C-alpha cells in the first residue's frame, strides 16, 4: 500500500507542477508576445509581427494545457490540489465536479484566460489582411490582457496550489449550488465577458495604428455578436436559476453582482447597433470606439466589484487578495483607453454629411444616448453604497429606484425599436410615417385590451403596448421582405431563399422579436404577480388567482446526506411536491425545493415554509403570469443571433477616410 501511495503522490505532484509550469510558461510567452507585437508593429517588421502572433498562439496553447490538467485533476478527485478539495468531494455528481473548473476563484480566472486565448487566436488567424500594423497591435493588446490574468494566476491565485497533506475527501459544494444552473450559468457569463476583449483589442489597435475606417468592426463583428449572445444567455440563465432555485418568487433583485453583468450587456447592445452606422456611412466613429471601450471597462469593473467585496451584496465575496489587482488593471485600462482617445481625437470627427435627425442614423445615435442613460442609472445605484459610505452614512437604493429611474428610458428604447427598422437611412419621407401606422395600431389595440381587462398600472400600460409595437414592426418587415421577393417572381421557395440571403438583417429582427417577448414576460410576471401565505391542514385547499391547490399531506424522506420534508399538493391533475431539505452534516442548513407548475399562461410557484405541531403545513404561493415567455423569448433571441451571425458581411460602403498623419504612419 505505501508503494501505491507514493506513486499517487508522485503522479499528483507532477500534475500540479506541470500545471503551474504551463501557467508560468504562458505568462512568459504572453509578455514576450505583447512586447514583440507592439515593437514589431511600430517598426513595421512583418517577420517579427508573425513571430509575435505565433507567440500568442503558443500562450493560448499553454493556457489550454493548464486547463486540461486542472480538469483532469478535478475529474479524478485529486484532493492534493487545494482547489479540488475546496470545490468538490467524492459525493458530488461528476457533472458538477467538472463544472468546478469555473466554479471557484482561481479556476474561473483560468477559464477567462482560456476563452481569451481561444477566441483571440481565432481572431488573429485571418487578421493579416487588416493590415500588418493593426493586426500586430491587436495581438499585443490581447497578449497584454492575457498577461494580466496569467500574472494573477501565477502569483496570487493559482489553481495548482498543493496541500501539505492530501485529505481523503473534499469540502464539496454547498447544496444551494448543487444545481444544473451552476453548470451552465457561470461559464456562459464569463465567456460573454472574455469574448468582448476581442472587439476591444481590435478597436484599441485601430486607434493606436491611426486607422479610423471600419475594417476592425467588420473583422470583429462576429466576435461582438457572439459576446452579446453569450451575455444575453448568461443573464437569462442567471434569472432562470434564481427563479427555480432561490425560492423567493422572483428572478432579478438589482443586486450589485447582477447589475455589473447587466451594464456591459447594455453597452454591447448599443455598440452592435451603432457600429452599423460606421460600416455603412463611416459615421459615429467616436461613438463606436467609445462604446467598445466602455463595454470592456465595464467588464473589468464588474469583475473587480464581484471579486473584491467592496459593495454590499447578497452574494458573499470575501475581500480577496485579487481585488486590488483588478482595481489596478482597471486603472491601467482606463488610463490607456482615455489616453488613446485623446491622442487620436483628431481623427475621430465625422466626415460626410450628417443625416437628418429623423433617420436610421439619428435613431441609432439616440439609442446610444438612451442606453448610456440606463448604464448611468444602474451604475449610480450600484455605487451609491460606496460613495455615500465614504462621505457619510451609508445608503443603498432599493429595487423601486431602478424601476422608476430606468423605466422611462426603457420605454423610449422600446419605442425606438418599434420605429427604428422602418426609418430609412437618409431622409424620412411620407412612406415612413405611413408605415408607422402599423406599430401604432398594434399598440392601440393591445392598450385597449389591457384597459378592458382592468389593468391600471402605468408601467404595464406603457411597456406592453410598446412591446406589441416592436412585434408588429418585425412582422411587418418580414411580410414586406417576403412580399417583395414574391413579387419578383418565383413564389415561396425563392422568397425564403432571398430572405435567407439577408440573414444578418432578418436574424436581427428575430432577436428584436425575442426581446419584445421577454419584455412582455417580465412586465406580466412583475406587475401582475399574486402572492398568498396560507396554512393548511391535510385535505384542505386554497385558491390563488383562480388556481386551486389541495394539500394532501407531508412526509419526511431520508436520503444519503440529507432528509427531505415533502408536501404533496394537487393542482388540477398535476402533483406538486414543494419540499425542504435539511443537511445535518452542514449544521442543519435547510434548502428549499420550489414546486413550479408552468404553463404558457402562468406559473404556479409553491414554497413550503414548514410544518406545525398540529400537522398543518404552511406555504407561500405565487402565481406568476407569463414567466415562460421570458425563457421562450430568450430562445428566440438565440436563434436570431445564430441566424444573424451566419450572414455574410455587407460590403463596407463608406467614404475613403484619411488617417491621422503621424510620425508613426498608418498601415
Amino acid at each position: 500500500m505505501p508503494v501505491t501511495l507514493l506513486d499517487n503522490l508522485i503522479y499528483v505532484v507532477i500534475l500540479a507542477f506541470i500545471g503551474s509550469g504551463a501557467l508560468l510558461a504562458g505568462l512568459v510567452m504572453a509578455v514576450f508576445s505583447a512586447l514583440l507585437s507592439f515593437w514589431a508593429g511600430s517598426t513595421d517588421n512583418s517577420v517579427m509581427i508573425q513571430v509575435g502572433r505565433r507567440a500568442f498562439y503558443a500562450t493560448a496553447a499553454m493556457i489550454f494545457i493548464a486547463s486540461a490538467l486542472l480538469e483532469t485533476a478535478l475529474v479524478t478527485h485529486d484532493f492534493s490540489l487545494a482547489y479540488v478539495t475546496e470545490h468538490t468531494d467524492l459525493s458530488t455528481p461528476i457533472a458538477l465536479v467538472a463544472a468546478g473548473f469555473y466554479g471557484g476563484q482561481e479556476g474561473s480566472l483560468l477559464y477567462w484566460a482560456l476563452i481569451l486565448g481561444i477566441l483571440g487566436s481565432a481572431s488573429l488567424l485571418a487578421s493579416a489582411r487588416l493590415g500588418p500594423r493593426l493586426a500586430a497591435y491587436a495581438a499585443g493588446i490581447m497578449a497584454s490582457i492575457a498577461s494580466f490574468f496569467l500574472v494573477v494566476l501565477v502569483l496570487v491565485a493559482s489553481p495548482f496550489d498543493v496541500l501539505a497533506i492530501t485529505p481523503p475527501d473534499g469540502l464539496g459544494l454547498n447544496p444551494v449550488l448543487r444545481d444544473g444552473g451552476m453548470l451552465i450559468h457561470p461559464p456562459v457569463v464569463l465567456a460573454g465577458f472574455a469574448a468582448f476583449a476581442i472587439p476591444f483589442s481590435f478597436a484599441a489597435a485601430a486607434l493606436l495604428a491611426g486607422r479610423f475606417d471600419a475594417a476592425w468592426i467588420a473583422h470583429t463583428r462576429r466576435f461582438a455578436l457572439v459576446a452579446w449572445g453569450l451575455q444575453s444567455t448568461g443573464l437569462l440563465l442567471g434569472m432562470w436559476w434564481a427563479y427555480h432555485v432561490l425560492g423567493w418568487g422572483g428572478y432579478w433583485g438589482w443586486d450589485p453582482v447582477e447589475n455589473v453583468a447587466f451594464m456591459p450587456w447594455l453597452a454591447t447592445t448599443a455598440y452592435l447597433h451603432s457600429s452599423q452606422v460606421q460600416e455603412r456611412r463611416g459615421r459615429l466613429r467616436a461613438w463606436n470606439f467609445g462604446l467598445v471601450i466602455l463595454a470592456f471597462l465595464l467588464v473589468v469593473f464588474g469583475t473587480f466589484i464581484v471579486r473584491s467585496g467592496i459593495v454590499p451584496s447578497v452574494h458573499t465575496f470575501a475581500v480577496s487578495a485579487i481585488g486590488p489587482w483588478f482595481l489596478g488593471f482597471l486603472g491601467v485600462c482606463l488610463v490607456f483607453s482615455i489616453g488613446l482617445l485623446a491622442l487620436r481625437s483628431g481623427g475621430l470627427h465625422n466626415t460626410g454629411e450628417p443625416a437628418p435627425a429623423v433617420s436610421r442614423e439619428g435613431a441609432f445615435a439616440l439609442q446610444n444616448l438612451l442606453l448610456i442613460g440606463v448604464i448611468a442609472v444602474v451604475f449610480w445605484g450600484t455605487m451609491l453604497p460606496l460613495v455615500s459610505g465614504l462621505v457619510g452614512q451609508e445608503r443603498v437604493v432599493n429595487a423601486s429606484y431602478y424601476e422608476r429611474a430606468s423605466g422611462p428610458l426603457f420605454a423610449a428604447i422600446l419605442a425606438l425599436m418599434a420605429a427604428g427598422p422602418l426609418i430609412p437611412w437618409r431622409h424620412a419621407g411620407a412612406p415612413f410615417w405611413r408605415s408607422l401606422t402599423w406599430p401604432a395600431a398594434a399598440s392601440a389595440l393591445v392598450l385597449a385590451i389591457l384597459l378592458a381587462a382592468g389593468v391600471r398600472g402605468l408601467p404595464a400600460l406603457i411597456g406592453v403596448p410598446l412591446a406589441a409595437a416592436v412585434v408588429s414592426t418585425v412582422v411587418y418587415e418580414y411580410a414586406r421582405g417576403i412580399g417583395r421577393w414574391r413579387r419578383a417572381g418565383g413564389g415561396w421557395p425563392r422568397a425564403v431563399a432571398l430572405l435567407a440571403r439577408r440573414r444578418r438583417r432578418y436574424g436581427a429582427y428575430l432577436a428584436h422579436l425575442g426581446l419584445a417577448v421577454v419584455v412582455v414576460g417580465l412586465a406580466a410576471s412583475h406587475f401582475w404577480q399574486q402572492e398568498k401565505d396560507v396554512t393548511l391542514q391535510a385535505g384542505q385547499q386554497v385558491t390563488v388567482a383562480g388556481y386551486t391547490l389541495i394539500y394532501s399531506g407531508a412526509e419526511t424522506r431520508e436520503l444519503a446526506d440529507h432528509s427531505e420534508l415533502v408536501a404533496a399538493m394537487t393542482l388540477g391533475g398535476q402533483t406538486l411536491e414543494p419540499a425542504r431539505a435539511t443537511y445535518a452534516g452542514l449544521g442543519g442548513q435547510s434548502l428549499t425545493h420550489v414546486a413550479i407548475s408552468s404553463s404558457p399562461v402562468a406559473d404556479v410557484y409553491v414554497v413550503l415554509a414548514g410544518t406545525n405541531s398540529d400537522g398543518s403545513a404552511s406555504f407561500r404561493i405565487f402565481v406568476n403570469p407569463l414567466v415562460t415567455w421570458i425563457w421562450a423569448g430568450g430562445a428566440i433571441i438565440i436563434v436570431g443571433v445564430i441566424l444573424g451571425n451566419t450572414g455574410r458581411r455587407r460590403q463596407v460602403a463608406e467614404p475613403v477616410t484619411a488617417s491621422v498623419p503621424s510620425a508613426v504612419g498608418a498601415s
Partner: protein
Amino acid sequence: MTLIVATLLLFAAGPFVLWPLIKTPEDGVEVESR
C-alpha cells in the same frame, strides 16, 4: 520544479514561435503567413 517545467515548455514552443525567423526567405520576398 515549476521553473523546470516552464522552461521545458518554452523550449518546446520555441520552434513554432520562431518559425518565421528560421525558415529561409524566398528571394528576399517575405511570405506573409498566418
